[in-house]
């Protein structure tokens, strides 16, 4: 049977967790713009580490496949695609390697998302966002 924490997390899409981590990371960075190297394979490695280090129902939604030598979570891949499709994150030319959080991403977090997380979840997300900043190549 689902625990309360899992039931709460289930109501949130993995995209929402990802959007929250990015918005909080931007705030923690203290910079006016959050930009980081984010090819799919790079983000997969970063999130694999985050999931291993922070056991939480929020991050456990990113299930990693056990096939192949490098970490791969289709849910993470789909989430980042949906955030792109939603216009919350963008990628910079020419090679699309650099990911940045758009203004719409921050607005979405402030106006829609923040209220959906509990206090302990927000605390957890802040910790994850801090570690995310350490792991990504800016």
């Amino acid at each position, binding site marked *: 049977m689902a625990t309360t924490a899992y039931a709460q997390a289930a109501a949130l*899409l993995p995209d929402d967790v990802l959007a929250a981590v990015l918005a909080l990371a931007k705030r923690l960075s203290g910079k006016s713009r959050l930009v980081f190297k984010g090819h799919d394979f790079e983000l997969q490695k970063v999130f694999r580490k985050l999931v291993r280090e922070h056991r939480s129902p929020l991050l456990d939604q990113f299930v990693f496949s056990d*096939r192949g030598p490098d970490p791969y979570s289709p849910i993470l891949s789909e989430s980042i695609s*949906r955030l792109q499709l939603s216009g919350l994150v963008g990628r910079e030319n020419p090679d699309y390697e650099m990911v940045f959080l758009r203004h719409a991403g921050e607005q979405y977090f402030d106006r829609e998302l923040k209220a959906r997380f509990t206090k302990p979840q927000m605390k957890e997300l802040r910790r994850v966002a801090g570690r995310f900043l350490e792991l990504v190549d800016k």
Partner: protein
Amino acid sequence: MRRGLEGRVELLVEWLFDGFETTIPRDSKVINDALLGNQYFTKAEIAVIDSPLLQRLKKIRQTGLVFQVFPSATHTRFEHCLGACTLAERCFKAILDRSSVEFPRQKPPASEDRVGGDLAHLRMAALLHDVGHGLCSHSSEQIYEVLTDLQEFKRKPAYANNAPGEILSYLIVKTKKFRKWFKEVVIQRCGAKINLNVVAQMILGKHPNRNKHFLAQILSSPYDADKLDYIARDSYYCGLALTVDLPRFYSMISTTVYKKHRLLVLRSYVPLEQILFSKMTLFGSVYHHPKVKCLDVMLRSVMRHIVENPRECGLMIRGKHIDFAEPVEYLYTTDEEFFNQSDGFGDEFVRRMLDRFRRRNLFVRCLEISRRTVTNWDEYHRKKVVDLSAPTADVHRVEKEIHGRLPASVRKKCDPDEVLLSVPGVPKIKSDNAYIQASPGAATESIEAFFPLEQWTDAYAYNKWRSFVYAPREYRKAVSNAAASILKEMFGVVVDLTKSNQACHLT
């Protein structure tokens, strides 16, 4: 007694084999294919091809309901399985050829033996890789993938990267019934030396021996035999002139050892570019065609109605009552049986919808949600609509709200299940890690380092992504207004009705 997914798959396979009398093939056979020409199959493979698992695929169209839009797209999963088997062998041989040139002193990376070697296992896995497909192929896969026990499977690392159809194929191959039949017929009477556990793992894109991981990748990777066949086959039968230069592709594949796995690598990204370009074209022109999406949501509506009304709407297939509440039930029937029940089935709604499918009297577009029609496209509100493309999203809640907003006179006539919303996701152009190694001994790198995959996703999302609200023609104006009003209220998305009406030919 409640059975798990494995138990229900076991019952399905017993039902499929019930009354089946195996005829042992006399010899190997040549089967001619419109696309690939002569294809050679061993005696053991012919026994499997003649089994109920493969034969039922003759009645399941490869592209589901696409034939209603592209009339010649009536090709089946059966042809595709045979084609994938042939192309898997061609990839396998190309790898061995290249290996003999690049590493003449090394042992070949795999055995070419068709009776019990790696090639035999690869071909058998290719033949069986789609036996888990049900009614209308991917159209129903989108419906049943959210059903609980498949979701439980998807939460396990072993199945996280597999489509629902692949998980069901794997479970079918693992059933006691099939294993018993396989042992008696394929191994003992046809003389094959094939380990069915290895075959089952390969269907999931894995191999028990890391040094042979590339064999699984021939079947499941961004440039696998499955894709090579369906891109060529779907485009051919839809009349699209797409080309994948297969001889060039074969000349560019090889293997390398990376992190203790022997992997399939490309020597150049050019063949991959062709594959991805063709795949994106197929998405834009075929799989996400507005009428095809309409057919998909119409099927979803029928299925939902049957699930909610099992007594009145259940279907009887060879003594088995099915109501589509479980993923496996989509495998008890085929396109042919479902749409051509001589006496019809279900209640008035189901009969009316099936009649619409038969007469191609499809719903029409009432509202388009896209960059062209949404005035506040760049604001965050779009996210809430895109969220509805997630498999677990409750699209029906929005449909019910739109129905509830219709003028009373229309609401009285229009069934709540006749207002349908389609929110496609972004085409998945990469299903796993994929690697390029420019020459033997060079670094093994992810394809994104060479090729801007994310740019393609972005370009598709920006230029081609569209979501639609559909309804019967007579209600289109009322549904258009109601949908625009609900989208603004629920999600803050503002649709310019003039532009939407133009896009939907609603004047």
